């Protein structure tokens, strides 16, 4: 009976700790809401297919997982050393380019594996690869920046999702629209969508460059 009581006490303790970090539970709820929302937006388009939705959902998690560790160094004193070696702008550009390559590579690999198991419905491979590249650019820009922010908190994994998912949605919506176009055999109107995506990437890049030095300060 005593071991049962002990278990009960431990559960109570867990509850108390959870309650003390209320933001963590709020974060978990926000996590659920944004994930479902992203899934919903990807299946909502009538011309879209489950393939499209699943692929981008997977891409989102791949990108978040790959980029979360970007600023793990911050916890040790290593970032002080980096701070002396390079300017913050150099650091964020380097990290973003590295993450861009990483995410792009991972997306290509998952495209291959997807095609192997689920078939390949993409009719215009060239346009799809461009979409992947622009998408990896947007994802790595936002997520690298967000991982810099969330590395300041105690629970960086949760914050990666809370802060990152809603910020990614504008990129996500245009990515899904573009992918829907690549599903059709003849090239539709895609120039305006591509330019919107490029414009979003450029604007985000500009703000990341301006804002990052302020994050890097401590």
């Amino acid at each position, binding site marked *: 009976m005593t071991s049962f009581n002990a278990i009960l006490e431990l559960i109570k303790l867990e509850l108390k700790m959870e309650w003390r970090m209320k*933001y963590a539970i709020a974060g978990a709820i926000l996590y659920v809401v944004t994930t479902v929302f992203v899934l919903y937006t990807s299946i909502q388009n009538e011309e879209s297919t489950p393939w499209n939705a699943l692929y981008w959902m997977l891409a989102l998690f791949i990108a978040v997982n790959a980029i979360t560790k970007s600023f793990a160094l911050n916890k040790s004193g290593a970032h002080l050393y980096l701070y002396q070696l390079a300017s913050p702008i150099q650091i964020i550009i380097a990290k973003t380019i590295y993450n861009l390559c990483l995410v792009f590579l991972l997306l290509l690999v998952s495209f291959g594996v997807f095609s192997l198991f689920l078939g390949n419905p993409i009719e215009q491979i060239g346009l799809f690869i461009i979409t992947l590249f622009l998408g990896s650019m947007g994802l790595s820009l936002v997520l690298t920046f967000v991982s810099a922010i969330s590395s300041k908190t105690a629970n960086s994994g949760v914050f990666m999702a809370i802060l990152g998912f809603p910020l990614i*949605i504008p990129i996500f919506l245009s990515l899904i629209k573009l992918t829907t176009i690549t599903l059709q055999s003849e090239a539709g109107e895609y120039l305006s969508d591509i330019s919107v995506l490029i414009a979003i990437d450029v604007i985000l890049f500009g703000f*990341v460059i301006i804002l990052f030095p302020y994050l890097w300060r401590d």
Partner: protein
Amino acid sequence: MKNHWWKILAVLLLLYAIIMGLFVPLKSGILGLTPREFKTDQKITTHVKTYNTDFTKGVDGSSIAYIKINDKFKLYADLVKVVDKNTLALDFTLPALLPSIQKKWPYTIVVNDKKHGAFVRPDAIVLEQAALNLDAAISNWPKQIEKQLLFPDELNFPFRPILYESIRNTFYHVPLWFGMVFLLFGSVIYSIKYLRKPNHNFDYRAKSLTSIAVLYGMLGCVTGAIWAKGTWGTWWTFEEIKLNVSAVAMLIYIAYFILRSALVDEEQRARVSAVYSIFAFVAVVLLLFVVPRIATNSLHPGNGGNPGFGGEDLDNTLRMVFYPAIIGWALLGFWLGQLHYRYSILAERLNDEFE
């Protein structure tokens, strides 16, 4: 007084928006015709149900009505009878042939009198002709005397099917969203000020303005939901891009407050949340103003091929209330933000004293 003039202005503009917005009547309009489908080459009578009219007083038999076949050809009613306050009976003699290239087509009906002015309902009456013969129709078209339309000098909001009285929500729902964007912009200004010169008051101001902006966003959602219930028949629809993006915008700013609560060190919290709020504002602007424009379909004006605020959508009477309403709501938001800021400063001071 020198520092408070804008608060007085906010109150006056909002009073103006509320009084004008709720008390200026809607223009008279046609709700529908019964019956509304006819074959040509016969004498017909149809009843017109109208809105916001009283034909029993002040009309003095000045009523006329016609079916508009196209820009050149009108068919006047032989007789316009007043049935009750809101109903007219129209007698037409339909010729066998219509100067139209459609066999069966809905035409516009126009009713006019000296009290209510002209009211038009497109696609109100469906006429079906047995044969198509444009030349014969034009040469046999009955000779009619062109009648002058009468327009009384009155202030009223346009009558729009589906919208009806809810058009007044233009002065509350839309300015709330405008106000939210202005407030968020104000918050970004204070965030920039903080990053340039770390002073905690700037951080508190940014936080207060963001709180009020989120409040405005929520009120915008509520007023929009009520409007949607009346016009689209549902409180909320996920198929509408603007509803989705505004939900995401709310999420972005809820994340802002969660981020604040997770950062313990005051200086770090102020700096990190300033950086996040600037970045978030960029994302929200992209969300609210860029993404809906590339969406394929939308029920909102100005998106997915619908007309925006301009031309037909916003007539001069609406504009006269709409623009002051935007300024009024925005100023009220900044006032609320200021009060919230003072409250946070006082709460902080109290906290310090008790500790």
